[in-house]
């Protein structure tokens, strides 16, 4: 049996260089990686613990927006009052990941890079329009969250690349976001369908902008522009919500598996998108 190396770099450059080694895997909260190692599905040669890097562990607020380190844990972000007030949908999605114990470790970066189509935080991040800062051998670059995952367990990150932080641009007034998922159980479960919606209203209550993210209904979490378009320019009335639901269902490319059928996922994606939009609307109205 080969020994596993463990590295805990304190700078981004060191992390990039260790992650460029063959068989290297980034470790943030470890709530996926360690489970996969125990289950035998991955056997890293080098584990690069990125929690020692300051940029990955902080939450910064500027007039332009929030910058959240990729290794910040769910419990930590939930306790950040200002962030939670501005992005309640992101926080509720993030905090659905795992139990209380897991919440002490699980990170946004890990949830995204594990590239599960059912990851709870990802549709909410997509709806919020979050952008990632990526560090790698070629320096830093930026990408939208929806461009990171390409399929189950696969990301667009190049060897040696990892996510440093997420940027959430300060939204216009009267913006609200929400995330809902469907699971057969109330806890300890994985989304069969997930829906994140973020929408902004003008002073008259008309929707000026919207983003809709769906999880667990395709090989990766989806941004659904057609569903968002159903809301923009409307007062988010029942007719608009019905159109949104239909567009969300139409965007689904799910599979039949042990967790749900194609028929179920397609139908429930519309239901959840509509319910999430209603919740986001209430928040945008300050209710």
């Amino acid at each position, binding site marked *: *049996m080969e020994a596993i190396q463990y590295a805990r770099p304190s700078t981004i450059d060191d992390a990039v260089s260790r992650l460029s080694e063959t068989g290297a895997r980034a470790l943030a909260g470890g709530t996926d990686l360690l489970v996969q190692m125990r289950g035998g599905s991955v056997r890293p040669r080098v584990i690069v613990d990125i929690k020692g890097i300051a940029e990955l562990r902080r939450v910064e607020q500027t007039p332009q927006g929030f910058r959240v380190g990729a290794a910040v844990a769910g419990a930590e972000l939930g306790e950040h009052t200002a962030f939670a007030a501005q992005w309640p949908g992101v926080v509720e999605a993030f905090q659905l990941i795992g139990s209380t114990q897991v919440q002490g470790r699980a990170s946004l970066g890990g949830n995204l890079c594990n590239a599960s189509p059912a990851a709870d935080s990802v549709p909410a991040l997509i709806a919020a329009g979050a952008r990632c800062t990526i560090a790698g051998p070629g320096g830093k670059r930026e990408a939208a969250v929806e461009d990171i995952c390409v399929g189950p367990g696969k990301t667009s990150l190049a060897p040696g690349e990892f996510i440093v932080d997420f940027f959430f641009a300060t939204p216009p007034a009267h913006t609200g976001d929400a995330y809902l998922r*469907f699971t*057969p*159980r*109330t*806890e*300890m*479960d*994985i989304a*069969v369908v997930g829906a994140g919606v973020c929408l902004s209203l003008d002073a008259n209550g008309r929707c000026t902008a919207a983003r809709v993210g769906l999880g667990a209904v395709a090989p990766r979490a989806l941004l659904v522009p057609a569903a968002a378009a159903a809301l923009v320019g409307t007062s988010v009335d029942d007719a608009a919500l019905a159109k949104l639901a239909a567009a969300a269902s139409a965007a689904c490319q799910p599979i039949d*598996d*042990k*967790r*749900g*059928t194609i*028929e*179920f996922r397609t*139908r*429930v994606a519309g*239901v*959840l998108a509509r319910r999430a939009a209603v919740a986001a609307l209430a928040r945008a109205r300050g209710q």
Partner: protein
Amino acid sequence: MGNEPKIFTKTYKWVGTRPVRPDGVDKVMGRAAFGADYQLPGMLFGAVVRSPHAHARIKSIDTSAALKLPGVHAAVTAADFPDLPSEVSAGGEAPVNFRHVSLNVIARDKVLYEGHAVAAVAATSPGLAAEAAALVTVDYEVLPHVIDVLEAMQPDAPVLHDDLYTSGVDPRPTTASNVAARTGFTLGDTAQGFAAAEVIVEREFKTEAVHQGYIEPHAAVATYAADGMATIWCTSQGQFMVREFTAKLLGMDISAIRVIPSEIGGGFGGKTTVYIEPLAVALAKKSGRPVKLVMSRVEVFKATGPTSGAWIKVKVGAKRDGKLTAGEMVLKYQAGAFPGSPATLGGMTGFAPYDIENASAECWDVVSNRPKCAAYRAPGAPMAAFGVESVLDELAQKLGMCPLELRMKNAAKAGTRALYGPKFLDIGYAETLTAAQVHPHWSMPLGPHQGRGIASGFWFNVGGPSSAAIHINEDGTAEVVTGNPDIGGSRASMALMAAEVLGIDYAKVKPMIGDTGQIAYSFLTGGSRVTFATGKAVCEAADATIAELKKRAAKLWKIDGQHVEWRDGQAWSTLDDGTDRAPLPLAKIAANASKTGGPISGAVSINAAGAGPGFGTHICDVEVDPETGGVTVLRYTAIQDVGRAIHPAYVEGQLQGGAAQGIGWALNEEYVYDAKGRLQNASVLDYRMPVASDLPMIDTVLVEVPNPGHPFGVRGVGEVPIVPPLAAVANAVSRATGVRIDALPISPPRLLKKLVDAGKV
């Protein structure tokens, strides 16, 4: 309805109280040693090589590469075990064919399900053992497989056993098939009964295989000494069962094996057979070192017994006033890879709560390429009750009758003849219905998309062989040794009964579970038998101890034994000879034991008869989300005739646990197979047992109609509560949605599809 629940008027000092359990502190503090907690010097770790195929012929097994790996000390295959003849004997909870047990523990010519053990290795670390297991090469010839019970019964289905001929059909078939047996029961004349009916309801039902879901995976440590003596430390529902089964499978004398039971982290029937213990002994024998085998959760799901999925048809006929005139059921149960499903038990129990003049049950035991089923809490009864209680609910709707009234009108009472033969003596079924009707839950208002279901259930409860020994210590405290693993708080119950009979303080009684060398034979913990049967043995051992204590008191007083009485933990002289003799407390007699004949003890071995059948009635409220098919259980009340609750808190716990498991069975639990017959959800994530937040607080009502066959009136309580929930939940969902539920689980995708197909959404 008139029948008020009978309530005990006699009160006891200890029986019926709720003290802290004797094993509680160890369990709360993490000191209790479970199966995987045992370690021995020089111990090796075992790993089992399992079949990746649902059905295949084993052409060859090569362990040489594994054995070449440094640190690997032994490998075993079926060649290391005797090839046992087909021979049925009473062993576990049901008759046992040891050839089948042996072939299930380690496959010989064929693998019959994914996860079937084909070899085992032992090495110096768990990681090395896993590596060695991966180096064992097995050459398989993959065969067509069959998973579904109805498909397995088809004449062109792949046949698992070429020596299996259906028993119970006339003439006996001349070709082998997957249909192991047909059994049946008849009472009266059902044709006549249906002819007399004014309303008939008939429906087919389907349930999926479900696992017992115990938290603790199977674990064992075994040693094999040069003198041929083996010792096994393991988790099981019966140390004597492990000893007998292991001896049989290895061709050893029973006296050559000692089994030391660990604490048990749940069993629910699933630990009433052996899987890894014979492998651990065989590896220990080959390596000359202690060997530990611990199953992973995946192994537990793939290779240990779930209970049967079933296909069920029920037909009932009734008069307009609700009086049942006839009932018929056909049950086809999955046995898994080897015969022995609890189909017959389903046929015996389904109609048992009811007084039906004309009834029949036809039961089919069918093998398929799934793990061999094992006992699970009231084996076979929940599925049959799901069919019967659903059909009764539909009948009540058709008649416009209250479902409780319908049941009350047909309730079995003392003197009712059950379909399976006997006439009931004192039973408390009607009393559970009355308790349901007066319970506040029954009259609570319901909101939109909400529904209320009720269902009843029956279980026999058993007695059987049990032993108990009471040792009076020098200071007057007492040890109570029994031979049954404590799976549901039985130590507390044994101590309470001993304290009550002896007349001493509960805190002075130390209950202990003996290993196979420390106490005489006791049948395993199962069949809801321990508080009844082993409890009866404890009462009799206490009586024997008291007889001895009285003799000793007589000796101290120098009077004849007939003049001594035992009351309140003291000997009293009844001799009226002018001498004033102060009563002798137990502690004083104990302190003087050496002067009166040595240590004081009482030991008995009995075959307990007189087990009292149990009945329960459950009320369940659900709310259905019609857009997602999600079901929320809002309120749940479990009512049961428990005879006499020795420790009411643990009896209530049994009712709550049974209801929780039954709700899981009804809503989300199922085995999901792919096209190749491989289990897709062998994890606690995707095999969805309910978590705490899925359930409301489950309310309980203990109805106490004493069982005359037990000194304190005890009935078994552990199995009845899993019988009604399947139908209680399904009836609630049926009433909430207006769509009759005929298949379990009622998982959201299945329910949503049903609602869509019915045009409800």
